[in-house]
């Protein structure tokens, strides 16, 4: 290493050190704000917030897969469903405290993800999209099946009895659930940022942009792809579990083909390649749009999704986060997304 490059490295380290406290301050403030909302928001609003954060977690994972690693999935609703049903079965059949169910759901999800991912990852581009498209369509029919109804409650689904936090905390049910969701959200934000900014992120971007060169440089492409996939599945399962808890109900009809499309929409509209803000904005989009449109126009949310997706692809492929990109860039330095 020449003196020149050492100087540059030192300069980079210095600048990064300078911006890190600022970034950390930003994240810390955001986390506190989320926590504070527990006291400010009530009932239904807390439920909405829980939903948004749950979907945001799922979107974070899917974003890693699609934005950073460039693989297309139209079927992650299946893993969301697996997470949701695992959590429900844990609560309903085994009485597991709800706050722990995402951990179990995540683990089960990862196993499923590994099983499905092994063959699926050998596919590329449109072919992977088609295979996952099939997965999304097949999911509700499997869930509805009588074969598993003893566990899944069949078509009727399962109503969840969720116990709030112990009395001494004086938190009601919505608040307890919300806090748990925030906890997992903060955890996943941390995890996502670390993965994306570290060597993993670089490997993912390299394999996305130029797999041949990446391989030539020594990146293990298969491992990078698998990691991205597994993480996305983990995130979706956890998100699904949290959402099931928030809604306190699961049924096959909660996980239609359109769920996978919604997750896809959240990532694309929120902004591919923005690790945190994109998924969050996307989650807000897919939770609030149906909320606002379904009363006036049944099925209208799909129209909004469709129109917005096409518009964003035409105007600003980096999504809502991309549109906000310049403000973020000024607040904190971060590696090129």
């Amino acid at each position: 290493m020449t003196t020149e490059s050492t100087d540059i490295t030192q300069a980079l380290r210095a600048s990064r050190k300078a911006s890190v406290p600022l970034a950390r301050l930003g994240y810390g403030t955001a986390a506190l704000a989320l926590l504070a909302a527990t006291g400010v928001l009530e009932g239904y609003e807390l439920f909405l917030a829980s939903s948004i954060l749950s979907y945001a977690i799922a979107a974070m994972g899917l974003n890693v897969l699609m934005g950073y690693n460039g693989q297309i999935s139209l079927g992650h609703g299946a893993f969301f469903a697996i997470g949701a049903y695992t959590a429900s079965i844990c609560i309903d059949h085994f009485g597991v405290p709800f706050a722990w169910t995402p951990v179990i759901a995540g683990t089960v999800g990862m196993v499923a993800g590994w099983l499905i991912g092994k063959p699926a990852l050998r596919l590329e581009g449109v072919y992977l999209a088609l295979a996952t498209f099939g997965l999304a369509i097949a999911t509700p029919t499997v869930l509805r099946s009588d074969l598993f109804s003893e566990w899944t409650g069949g078509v009727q689904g399962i109503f969840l009895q969720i116990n709030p936090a112990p009395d001494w905390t004086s938190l009601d049910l919505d608040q307890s659930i919300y806090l748990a969701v925030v906890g997992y959200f903060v955890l996943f934000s941390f995890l996502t940022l670390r993965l994306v900014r570290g060597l993993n992120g670089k490997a993912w971007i390299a394999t996305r942009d130029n797999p041949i060169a990446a391989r030539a440089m020594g990146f293990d492409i298969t491992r990078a792809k698998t990691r991205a996939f597994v993480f996305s599945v983990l995130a979706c399962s956890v998100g699904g579990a949290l959402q099931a808890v928030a809604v306190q109900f699961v049924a096959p009809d909660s996980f239609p083909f359109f769920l996978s499309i919604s997750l896809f929409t959240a990532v694309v509209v929120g902004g591919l390649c923005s690790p945190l803000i994109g998924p969050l904005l996307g989650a807000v989009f897919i939770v609030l749009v149906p909320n606002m449109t379904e009363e006036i126009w049944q099925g209208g949310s799909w129209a909004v999704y469709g129109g917005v997706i096409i518009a964003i692809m035409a105007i600003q492929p980096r999504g809502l986060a991309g549109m906000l990109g310049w403000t973020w860039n000024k607040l904190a330095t971060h590696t090129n997304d």
Partner: protein
Amino acid sequence: MTFFLEQLIIGLSSGGIYAIMALALVMIYKSTGHVNLAQGEMAVFSTFIAWTLVQMGVSIWPAILLTVAVSFIGAIVLERVVIRPFAKADDLVLVAVFVGLFLSVHSLAGAIWNYEVKPFPSAFSDGSINLMADLSIRVHTLGSLLATGAVLTAVWFFFRYTRLGLALRAAADNHVSSRLVGINVSVMLALGWGLAAGIGAVAGVMIAPVTFLDPGMGLAPLIFALAGALLGGITSPFGAALGGLIVGVLEAMVSAYVPYGIEFRELIALMLILSVLLVRPAGFFGEFMTRRV
């Protein structure tokens, strides 16, 4: 034995529908390199148009012909306005656009015609025909089989023996060379979409009497058509049609003979898709569309 034959004919009948939808997918894929995820929704939209015409008093066959014509034109407009601008975009953007198209067409159908399930008249008479001994088949099933067979034959003839068909095949094979021999590729692409939509409309009006008409009608047929197209080879019209027929028969057999078969039809289609993509992505008759490195 009779039961088997009955299921076989039913399977071939739905297979015929999957075959022409698979053909539509292949036509667009071959000429543009895109998989039209919205093919099913477009077919459903066309069927709704036919339904409206029937409600207005048009009898079924003229309604179908008119619908095919309208679908043809509508698809050309769609291709020019929505898809053409993204022609050179990369995979993820394209998939997103097709998903967007899927959602838009679906919702538009729901918005115009609402989500209530509607009955749809068969193009053929009601009732059944007794083919032999115990074997009774619904007229519609048989009619559908013959209709889709006719469509497949007509399309085959068009591509094989007409000048325009040759031009379309050329455009599907090689854009640059096509222009060098004087073919307007841009027009060919639009034509490909138009044709695909036309035959999709026929598929729709054959399915609707059986499954009843609602915006969600196109989802399952699409996945079966996709499985068939991949099985036979997404670059081979003949292969795709054959694949569609096989999938139809497979679906009927599984539904009839395998416990819980009916519930798992889509899952089996998915398994089929995965297997084909993993083992022989080009399908039985297709060839690799080489990806630019």
